[in-house]
């Protein structure tokens, strides 16, 4: 409950703070009745900052949730939402679209990013699930990281040789929450919703999985189905988020660990809490990034890392760790 309240406060602050500070009461009026305030203020709040805040909340929630599922699925504390190759696939999709097909618009790029993310995740899953034991945590993680590095290398290769692709890639990969309108949000919202539902529904199964594969199977879980569902949820959530904002790292990796020190390892608590805490961290980082080096802005995931990492280390030292 506490984190929900924090999130609400941060949302308001995010609407108010920026290179032009707007008092909170004016923010409220701009939201309720745009005609009653200065048109410039209405444009800033309702046009720019509202969507920016929404993107931060949605992307944060998606990445936090996907990170928690990913860590439960691979039982590896180093797993982040991009481990299935999703982020690398999205980057490759964008670079390929810009380099080979000359696609440059925002919305088409997002679809190419999404397609790349899905293709990479399918490839990782197929490679990691071959043979005996199915998609065991180690195989899935290794296949994922190998595909990630392969795609990153190819992306780097294309981007270094094709200025057009490099330009597009840099714009996307600067991990920006800005420059989006309702259209992009509406385009990815169904994927996010489906992914979130699927992810939350895997929570009890992830709990059994954390006891070990054999125990989970003995408890009547169908391992292949759980893994497939989890992987699908991660792909939907991360793919949609990353396609819009570019790779936002750190948040999805660390928030589940942060939450786990408080809730313990029960995924029925861990998943929803990660979904609330991650947007808080992302919004706080975004707001701080706007303020620190005014009038320019800092990359949100770097601010998140700089803010979150010391806190994270302190927490890791203080608490008794609930291991995965």
């Amino acid at each position: 409950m506490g984190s929900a309240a924090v999130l609400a406060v941060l949302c308001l602050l995010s609407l108010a703070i920026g290179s032009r500070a707007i008092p909170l009461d004016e923010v409220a009026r701009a939201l309720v009745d745009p005609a009653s305030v200065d048109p410039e203020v209405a444009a800033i709040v309702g046009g720019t900052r509202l969507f920016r805040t929404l993107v931060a909340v949605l992307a944060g929630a998606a990445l936090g949730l996907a990170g928690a599922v990913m860590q439960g699925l691979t039982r590896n504390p180093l797993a982040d939402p991009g481990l299935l190759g999703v982020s690398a696939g999205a980057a490759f999709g964008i670079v390929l679209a810009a380099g080979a097909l000359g696609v440059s618009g925002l919305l088409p790029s997002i679809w190419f990013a999404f397609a790349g993310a899905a293709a990479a995740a399918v490839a990782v899953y197929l490679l990691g699930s071959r043979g005996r034991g199915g998609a065991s945590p180690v195989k899935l993680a290794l296949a994922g990281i190998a595909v990630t590095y392969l795609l990153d290398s190819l992306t780097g290769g294309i981007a270094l040789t094709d200025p057009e692709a490099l330009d597009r890639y840099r714009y996307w990969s600067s991990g920006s929450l800005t420059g989006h309108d309702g259209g992009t949000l509406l385009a990815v919202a169904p994927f996010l919703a489906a992914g979130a539902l699927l992810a939350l529904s895997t929570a009890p199964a992830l709990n059994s999985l954390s006891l070990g594969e054999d125990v989970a199977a003995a408890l009547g879980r169908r391992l292949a189905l759980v893994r497939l569902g989890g992987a699908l949820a991660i792909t939907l959530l991360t793919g949609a988020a990353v396609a819009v904002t570019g790779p936002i790292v750190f948040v999805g990796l660390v928030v589940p660990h942060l939450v786990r020190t408080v809730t313990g390892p029960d995924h029925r608590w861990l998943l929803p809490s990660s979904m609330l805490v991650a947007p808080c961290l992302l919004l706080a980082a975004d707001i701080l990034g706007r303020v620190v080096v005014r009038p320019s802005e800092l990359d949100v995931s770097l601010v998140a890392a700089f803010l979150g990492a010391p806190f994270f280390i302190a927490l890791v030292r203080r608490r008794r760790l609930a291991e995965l």
Partner: protein
Amino acid sequence: MLELSRGRLHFRLTRPPVSGILRLRLAVVWLGAGLAALLALCLTVAMGSGDYALTPHGLLNALLGAGERADLFVVWELRLPRATVALLAGAALGLSGAIFQSVTRNPLASPDMLGITQGAGTAVAAGVVLGTGAGLAPQTLGLAGALASGLAIYLLAWKRGTTGYRIVLVGIGVSWMCVSLTSYLLSRAELYQAQKVLGWLVGNLNDRGWQHAGPLALALAVLLPSVLLLGRWQRTLRLGDEVAGGLGTPVQRVRLALLLGGAALAAFATAAAGPVLFVALAAPQIAQRTARAGSPPLTASALTGSTIVLVGDLISQRLLADSVLPVGVVTGVLGAPFLLWQLARANRTGTGG
């Protein structure tokens, strides 16, 4: 007295009165021999081919110091140092990755996932942008940064002893602190400074001389035997802290020694070759899977690392000479499909996992 049966060498000496069993894992031995042969071949190609081609005979002469002056210059001043740096850095990275993966019992752990490499990057960026330690070469700065972040991780993870799990989590935190610091420094830098830092961060092996190979060779000469001597304890450590302690392993001290060794290896390699990613993660896994061992075999991991970096550098230098592809990009394209192929193959023969 010696007796060899099914890959086990039983030996009994009368003086001193010592007996024991040496288990030769044939797969590991074959892998080592094969890799060594491959490395020799790559070295020959690396030093003999290029814009100034040498015949094998001429190369041998030059190596023995008896060729023409031009041959001697090309081999001793240009190609041999570069190949040596690639060889040694790859070995150090492979070994370091094998250590980190064993100690944390996590196949994803490696110095570039846990912040050692990132620490080096931050130090280089700070040196160039802020002028900290002015006059020091990026090599020295990188070494200092990597060692400092390795030490910081260990100290921050220490609380009445460490666990592999806490080291991994603290490593993530330190790693991201370093990444964000580096990026902040870069955003504050002048253009020429940023270019200098980025040139180092990308990691390539151009213009490497003996001054880069020397410290790395010295570090390997000290660290390699020490780490190999700890190998027995390293294997028991994989069984978990309680079991290892019960078997008489001084858990905390061995872990400290192994981690310091692994961090130092990665630090020296990064200082000499720049941050070459992926090798430290992939080489131990490739070696382990090829040898069908239960944990990353140390020597084979080092040899695998050498091969990946040397071949990667060879490709980026010779085949893609016009482009500016750094060796890290090539090692990714090279190592990743191989690891994937191994995953698929191991699964088919029923030894997956």
